[in-house]
Structure formats: C-alpha cells, structure tokens
C-alpha cells in the first residue's frame, strides 16, 4: 500500500515481533532524519525482531486517516498491541524506546 517496507537484513521468515510504520512527508531533512534514527535504534535494540514500513503521506494522503496522523513524522507501533504513537524526528533514543515500550525487554536481554 505504501512505499515498499524496508526490511532489515536480519529479518526472519516468520512475521516479526515489532511491526512499525513511520509516516513522513516527502524527503524533507526531518523525514530523512527520522528514518535513519529509527533504523539505528531498531538495529541497536530490537535486532531482527522488527519490520519497518515507511509511508509518505504526500504520495498517499488517504492513509493519514487510518492511524489518525496529525503530526509528522509519526512512528506507529502496530504490533505488539496496543497501538502506540511517537511523534517527532526520533532524535531522543530513550524516549523512543519508552514509547515503543522496549527498554525493559532490552535490559533483560543485556
């Protein structure tokens, strides 16, 4: 439906634990920063248990309604439930992890 999901190299054949969708508007500096921040955080803390889908609302404006997107960029954690949203360019790693609710998990794994 959107841009092709960007699958990390480490993705396993079965559906990943974290399904993330990042909404951006075009190729602005902020969009690019958000995408790269997200990839870096996921690689560091979710290694292989995630799938990222980047949606450019300029190309697909009708998709904004489904997740009630107002601010951009917005990261939506579609799985695991419940749905969580993080807005901003994802420059603060701690807050992103808090928003994704992965700090504990990450800590448990060392």
């Amino acid at each position, binding site marked *: 439906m959107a841009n092709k999901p960007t699958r990390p190299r480490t993705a396993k054949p079965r559906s990943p634990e974290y399904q993330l969708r990042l909404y951006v508007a075009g190729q602005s500096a902020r969009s690019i920063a958000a995408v790269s921040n997200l990839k870096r955080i996921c690689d560091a803390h979710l290694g292989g248990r995630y799938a990222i889908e980047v949606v450019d609302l300029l190309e697909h404006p009708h998709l904004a309604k489904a997740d009630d997107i107002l601010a951009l960029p917005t990261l939506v954690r579609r799985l695991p439930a419940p749905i*969580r*949203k*993080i807005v901003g360019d994802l420059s603060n790693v701690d807050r992103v992890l808090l928003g994704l609710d992965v700090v504990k998990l990450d800590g448990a794994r060392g």
Partner: protein
Amino acid sequence: MRRRQAARSPPEGLAKTPTGIGGIDQITGGGLPRGRPTLVCGTAGCGKTLFAMEFLVRGARQFDEPGAFIAFEETADELRDNVRSLGFDLDHMVRSKQLIVDHVRVERSEIEETGEYNLDGLFIRIAHAIETVKARRVVLDTIEALFSGFSDDAILRAELRRLFGWLKDRAVTAVITGERGDRHLTRRGLEEYVSDCVILLDQRIHDQVSTRRLRIVKYRGTAHGTNEYPFLIDEQGMSVLPITSLGLEHAVSDELISTGVPALDAMFGGKGFYRGTSVLVSGSAGSGKTSLAAHFAGATCRRGERCLFFAYEESEAQIVRNMRSIGLELQPWIDKGLLQIHAARPSSHGLEMHLVAIHKLVRKLHPQAIVMDPISNLIAVGTLSETNATLVRLIDLFKASGITAMFTSLSTLTAGAEQSEVGVSSLIDSWLLVRDLEQNGERSRTLVILKSRGMNHSNQVREFLLTSSGIELRDVYLGAHGALTGSARLGQEARDREDEAIRREAAMLAQSNLAVRRQAVEAQIADLQNQLHAIAVDLESTTGKRRRREQRVGGDRRAMSVSRHAPRPNGTRSGK
C-alpha cells in the same frame, strides 16, 4: 481598513461568501469574507458546530460550493445524527460529493513526543479532504482540541499560524470554531490568528429563560451590524434576527383601513388609520383592549385580508367565545384561514424565540394585519430594555413588510397611562388609550386618541361601551360638572329629556292659545264684513228710491211745462 463606505454596496475589494443562514448575510452585508478564515466562538452548546455545519450544507445546496468538515470533537456519525433533526441529510451529501466529513481524533495518551515535528499530517488530511470534493468551504471544529493532543504549545501555535495562512493561500472560505475562554474570546487565543472576521455566539439565561445571541465582534474591511442579534435554532436550522431594514426606509401608504368600529373610524377622520402603521391600544385591566383588537382583526378579515393574532393571555377558543358575547364572530374567518390565532404563554420561550417565531409566521403567511395581545406580557420574559429592543425590531419588521399592526398593552393604574408602555410609544403611529373612569360608584370605560400621526383625529374623550352587538362609542356628557359617563350621563340625559318635554308642551300650549285667538279674531272679522255688506245693501236701496222719486218729480215738471208751453228747463235732470 475598516471604513464606513462599505456600508451600502459591497466593496469591490472584498468578496463575500454568502452563508445562506437566515439573517447572517444581512448583518454582515453579504456573508463571510471569501477565501479567508472566520472564527466563530462561544460557550459550550451555543451552536458553533451547527453554525459551521449549516454554512457548509447551505453552501453546497444553495451556492454549489462543496464543503469539507474537519471534526476534532465529534465523529462523522455523531455529526450526521445531530444534524439530521435539522433536515440535513449528510449521508446523501457525502455520497454526491457535496460534502466530506473527516473526523480527526486527538488523544493525548497515545502520543509520545520526541524531537521536532510539525502538523503536516493534518495539513495533508485537510488538503486531501479539499481535493476529494473540490471544497470551496472548510470547517475546522474545534481546532483547539489539538492543544490537548500535543504538549508543545510553541510548535502548535506556530503550526496554527501556518495553517491559517495556508488556508488563505488555498482561497477556501473557512469557519474555525473555538470555545469561549475566560479572558479571551477563545481559550487559546485563536482570535490572534484569525483576524478577518470574528463572530461571537452567546447563550444567556435571564429569569430561567434562555436567549441565544450572535454578535459580529469584528469584520475587517466591511461595515457590519454591531448589535447583539438574537438567534434561534429550530427544525430549519439557525436564524438570526433582525432581517429588517436597519434604517427607516419602508414605503408608506395613503390607504386608510377601518378599525372595525365605525365610530372609532369617525374619530380617525372618517376612515380609520393608515395601512402599514403601528397602533397601540393601552389601558387598564378589563378596559376592552382585546375587544378592540378583535374588532380590528374582524375588519381585516372582512376585507378578505389575512390577520395574524398573537394571544399571550387567552386561548383561541376563549377569544372566539368572548368575542361572540359582544357580537363579533371570529370563527368563520378562522375556518376560512384568514384569521390565525397563535396563543402561547410568553414565558414558553425566550424573547428571541418569540421574535423568530413571529418572523417565520410573517414570512410564511404574509398577513396584512397583525395583532399582539398584549405586548406588556413579554416583559415577563426579558428585561424592560430587552423587550423594548424586541418590539423595536418587530415594529421595524411589520413596517418593512407593510403590515398594519395593533398592539395592546396593559397599563397599571398607578403609573400614568401616558407614561406607557414598555417605552414604545415613540415608535407607535397611532395610540388609543382606553381608561376606566370611576365615578358615582361605578366604572365606565372611556376612549381617547392620544396621537395619530399624519391625520386630523378627534381629540374628544368618548365613552366606550361593550354591547352585545359590538363596540359602541358615545359622546360623553359635557356638563357643568365636567364629563359625565355611565349612569351619571344617562341620568343627566334623562333630565335633559324631561326638560325638553316640558318645554315642548309649553310651546304647544302657547301655540294652541294663539290659534284660538286667531279663530276669534277671524270670527270678528267675518261678523264685521257681514255688517259692512248689510250697510252696502241698505245704501243701494236708499239711493234707488231717491232716484226713482226724482225721476217721478222730473216727469211731473215736464208735463206741467208742456201744459204751460214753458221752455224746457236746462239741467233739471241732475238731482241734488
């Protein structure tokens, strides 16, 4: 930019978008500023959302301008249900692409903020909605909800400013609603961003009766009505009053129409009062105001014209019955549809509701005459000044529509009646005062015309009688002890009649005496003439005898002289 010159004709520079909402276009001189945002603010439940929705619905239906409704508070389904009672079928309009409703859910708890962001998502959604139906009108209801969804006020304010600029760039006419704040027009000071046109809606409770009002707080580049206008939300949507002329420009008529009481017509110079004027009948309780008004209504219907009768004290059946008792049948006119009686307690709804209800009926029925009985009861609903303002608007409305209006007003005995009457006397063209006069242990009614503009009316006080055959006016008795009415007048009139009879009798007596004398004289004359005749006859006979004797004597002398051969004596024939 705010200049007076814009008052009459819409200036070329400022295009306007008609709302189609009753009354708004009149007080804004054509509608909302085209291609610019307008802020509509007010307290909860004052009709902001409805205003916005009606703006879109009427825009799509009447002006062929599709609309986009961006709802931040209510869902599309809720909105649809809410406005269905007003006859707006949103589903149908959405299907036919006249309208799009987009519900934007703002929920704080779901959103974590990290780093910089903007509201491009919202912009994209609005743009998408606009594109979908090619919207010319946009509503954002209520955009302040965004403040509860994001914690960074600075970003939000910058984005709102950008949003309103963006809406202007897209040249859509936007209505933005905002909740009324404590110190500001809106809680978040939205008026800062929307500077072209701000409309304030208000709902006030006075004596447990609520009145909705609307005021144009500002409207750049155009003159606008600055008053508070009452408005009403009913099954046909919103209507704002007045739609009447803001000036005194109504046409006047020279036609005189009957008051329904011939004697009263006579007091007004013979034919009644001018068509299209306002008549006030004021008086104390039970002085016959309603009866006068009903006669006027009856006269209107008799001419084949429609009359609207607002009864604030009595029911329709009661009025019909009571008027029958004084010989006035109203039922046939009701049956024919010429007379419509609307009976309602004034307190049943607020003044604005009365105004709008009256207004709607006037537009629907186009009556030639209106009776309001009594206007003094309206004070029960609002304050004196509010009632006053309402009546001014009503009178304006009636005059602008060429309707002859009769108002009755109850005046208390203590307050001087001329002090009247809800303070409308100066607006009234003709003013009848019906008074109770207490004299010699009884009350009687009197009627006087206090004023009647533009005609030579009677200045006399008349006694006013309610008889089984209608209203009658009698001249009051003006005697040595002042004006007499009622049985005092009757008594005086009886005394007068007695005096008159005596005088008449005396005259007749004198006349017959003279006739007798005349007969006597004539008899004497006849007698004398008889005597005269007798004398003449005697004289005649005496003369005859003498002539015969003289002839006889003359004959003897001739015979003697013949015998003596004496010459004939000359002139012997003439007797001495």
